[in-house]
C-alpha cells in the first residue's frame, strides 16, 4: 500500500480506548446484540465489545435471512424473477421491480410507452414517501418513543398501500412492472386518489415535523451521533440519503436521469454534518421534494398504452450480453447486473443492494459511541434484512 490509508477503517473517532487488562477498570465485555433483538430490524446480529457503555469494537453478523435469491434468479425465467425482487426490500417492491425491469429492458432493447414511464415515476415517488415515513417512525421507536410516531407514520403509509393494492392487487408484494411497461392500466379514479394522497401528504409532514423536528429529546439523541464524514461515505460506496446527509450531492435521478426524471423540477437536499439528525432531516426534505415530483407527474401523465405491444411475456429470451442498470431507490442505488447467454434465464443474476453496502460502515459510525446509540445509528442507516441477506 502506498502511503497511509486516508480513511483507516478501525480508527476510533471517540475517546481513547483503555488497554484490555486494566486492574482499575476491569475487563471489556462482549455482548451479542441480536439476532433476535427488536431494534435490529429483523434478524441481524452485532457482536459488540464494550468498555463500560462505550463501544470499542463492533462486528456485524448477517446472513440469517439468506434465501438464495441470486441463484434462484439464475434458475427461473426472466419473468419469474420479478416477484422475487418484491421480496428483496419488502417495503419498496415498486422500485425493486423498476430496477429489474430496467435491466432486462436494457438487455433486450425494449422500449417503454410514455404513460408507463410516468406511472413508474409516480409509483417510485410514492414508495419513497412510504419508505422514509416508515424510517422516521422506526428511528423514533429506536430512540425509545414507543408507539406514537410510528403509529402516525403507519397511518399515512396505509393510504399509499391502499393505492398500491387497488392498482396491483397486493399491498406490499406488488409484482407490477413488466419488461416493456406496467401490468395493468390504473383503474378508474386511481389517479384522482393518488392526487388526493399526494396533496394531503404535505399536511401530514407538517404535523410530523411539529411533533419531531424541534423536539429536544430527539436532538439530544441524534445530533453529533454517528457522524459519517463525506470522504469515508464515498470510499465505502455508501449511496442514497446516507450519502447526501454526509454532504455529497449525488442522486441518480439527477446523475443518470433515467426514465422521465429530467422532465421534473426538484432539488436534492444535502446534510451539513453527516450525523443521525441530518440523516433524518434529509429524508424529511426528500419527502417534500417527492411530493413536488408527484404533483408534476400526476399533472402531466399522458394517455395511451401502458405496455409496449411488441413486448413478450411468455418465452422471453434476451440476446447474449451483459448489462448493469441502476436506479435511485429510497435507500440508495439499487442495481441489477445480468449476463445473458441467449437462453430463457440469465446466466448470472446479481443484485447491488443499497442496504448491505450502507451497512458496511456501521462499525465506523458506532466506535466511541454508547451502546444505546448503536441502536439509533443502525436505525438511521435504514436497512431491510430481506435485502441485506437476500
Amino acid at each position, binding site marked *: 500500500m502506498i502511503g497511509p490509508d486516508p480513511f483507516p477503517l478501525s480508527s476510533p473517532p471517540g475517546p481513547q480506548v483503555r488497554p484490555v487488562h486494566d486492574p482499575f477498570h476491569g475487563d471489556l465485555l462482549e455482548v451479542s446484540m441480536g439476532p433476535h433483538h427488536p431494534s435490529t430490524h429483523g434478524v441481524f446480529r452485532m457482536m459488540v465489545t464494550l468498555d463500560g457503555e462505550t463501544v470499542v469494537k463492533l462486528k456485524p453478523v448477517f446472513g440469517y435471512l439468506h434465501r438464495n435469491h441470486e441463484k434462484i434468479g439464475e434458475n*427461473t425465467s426472466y419473468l*419469474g424473477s420479478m*416477484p422475487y425482487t418484491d421480496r428483496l426490500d419488502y417495503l419498496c417492491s415498486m422500485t425493486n421491480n423498476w430496477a429489474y425491469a430496467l435491466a432486462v429492458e436494457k438487455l433486450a432493447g425494449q422500449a417503454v410507452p410514455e404513460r408507463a414511464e410516468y406511472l413508474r415515476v409516480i409509483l417510485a415517488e410514492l414508495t419513497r414517501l412510504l419508505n422514509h415515513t416508515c424510517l422516521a417512525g422506526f428511528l423514533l421507536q429506536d430512540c425509545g418513543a414507543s408507539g406514537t410516531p410510528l403509529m402516525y407514520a403507519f397511518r399515512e403509509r396505509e393510504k399509499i398501500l*391502499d393505492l398500491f*393494492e387497488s392498482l396491483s*392487487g397486493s399491498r406490499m*408484494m406488488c409484482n407490477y412492472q413488466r419488461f416493456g411497461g406496467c401490468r395493468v392500466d390504473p383503474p378508474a379514479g386511481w389517479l384522482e386518489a393518488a392526487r388526493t394522497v399526494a396533496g394531503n401528504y404535505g399536511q401530514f409532514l407538517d*404535523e410530523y415535523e411539529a411533533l419531531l423536528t*424541534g423536539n429536544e*429529546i430527539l436532538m439530544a439523541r441524534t445530533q453529533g451521533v454517528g457522524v459519517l464524514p463525506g470522504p469515508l461515505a464515498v470510499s465505502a460506496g455508501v449511496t442514497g440519503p446516507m450519502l447526501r446527509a454526509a454532504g455529497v450531492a449525488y442522486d441518480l435521478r439527477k446523475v443518470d436521469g433515467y426514465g422521465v426524471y429530467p422532465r421534473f423540477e426538484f432539488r436534492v437536499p444535502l446534510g451539513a454534518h453527516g450525523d443521525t439528525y441530518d440523516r433524518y432531516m434529509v429524508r424529511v426534505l426528500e419527502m417534500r421534494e417527492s411530493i413536488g415530483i408527484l404533483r408534476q407527474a400526476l399533472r402531466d401523465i399522458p394517455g395511451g398504452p401502458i405496455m409496449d405491444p411488441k413486448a413478450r411475456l411468455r418465452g422471453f429470451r434476451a440476446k447474449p450480453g451483459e448489462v448493469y442498470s441502476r436506479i435511485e431507490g429510497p435507500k440508495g442505488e439499487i442495481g441489477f447486473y445480468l449476463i445473458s447467454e441467449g437462453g430463457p434465464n440469465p446466466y448470472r443474476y446479481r443484485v447491488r443492494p443499497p442496504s448491505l453496502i450502507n451497512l458496511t460502515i456501521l462499525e465506523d459510525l458506532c466506535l466511541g459511541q454508547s451502546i444505546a446509540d448503536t441502536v439509533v445509528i443502525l436505525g438511521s442507516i435504514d436497512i431491510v434484512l430481506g435485502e441485506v441477506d437476500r
Partner: protein
Amino acid sequence: MLGTGLLQGLAVTARNLLGSFHDPKRFVTTQYPEERTKLPEAYRNFPFLVSENAVDPMGTLRCVACQICEKECPPQCIYIEKSKDKKADANGKPQLYPAVFDIDLAVCMSCQICVEVCPFDAIKMDQVFELATAERFNGLVLNREALAKPNSYFQEIHPTEAAEVDGRLAADRKAAEDKARAAAAAKAAPKPPSALPPPPPAA
C-alpha cells in the same frame, strides 16, 4: 427556549387524541372480524380454475392441461397430469383436460404469473383469504375439485377483468362458429357462384 419543541409535540398528540372524539374520520382502525373493509377489485391472493358453469364444474373446466402455468410458476406450486382421453370444450373442439390439478397454497406466492401466461383464460386469482387450517400437511393442497369455480363467481369478484375476458372469448367463439359454418357451406356447395353469398347452413 428549551422545551418548546416538546410542548409543540405534545400539542400535536393532544390534537390527535381529542380530535378522535368528534371526527369519525380519524378512526382508521377496522374492528376485524366484526367489521370488514371492502376489498379492491384488483385484490388477488390465490389462483382458482374457471369452469363455464356451476352445474358441471369438472365437465366444463376451461383448462386444457397445457402445463404452461406449471412451467412458469416461480415457486413451482402447481402440479398437473394430462388426461388420456379428450372432451369437447365450449367451442365444441375436442381438448385434453387436467386429470390432476393440484396447487399447494402454502408454497404459492400470489404473484399472478400463472394468470398472465394462461392462453385459455382458465386460471384466475381468487379473493378468499380466511384459509387457516388445522391440518398440517395437506390442508392447503387444493385439488381440481376444490379449485374449480364458475365463471359467474369470476364475474362477481373481478367485474372489469371478467367483462374483458368474456368479450374476447365470445368474439373467439363467434369467429370459430363462422369459420365452421363457412367450411360446412363450402363442403355442401363445392362450386358456389362467385357473385352470390354462400347459402345459410340447413341447421
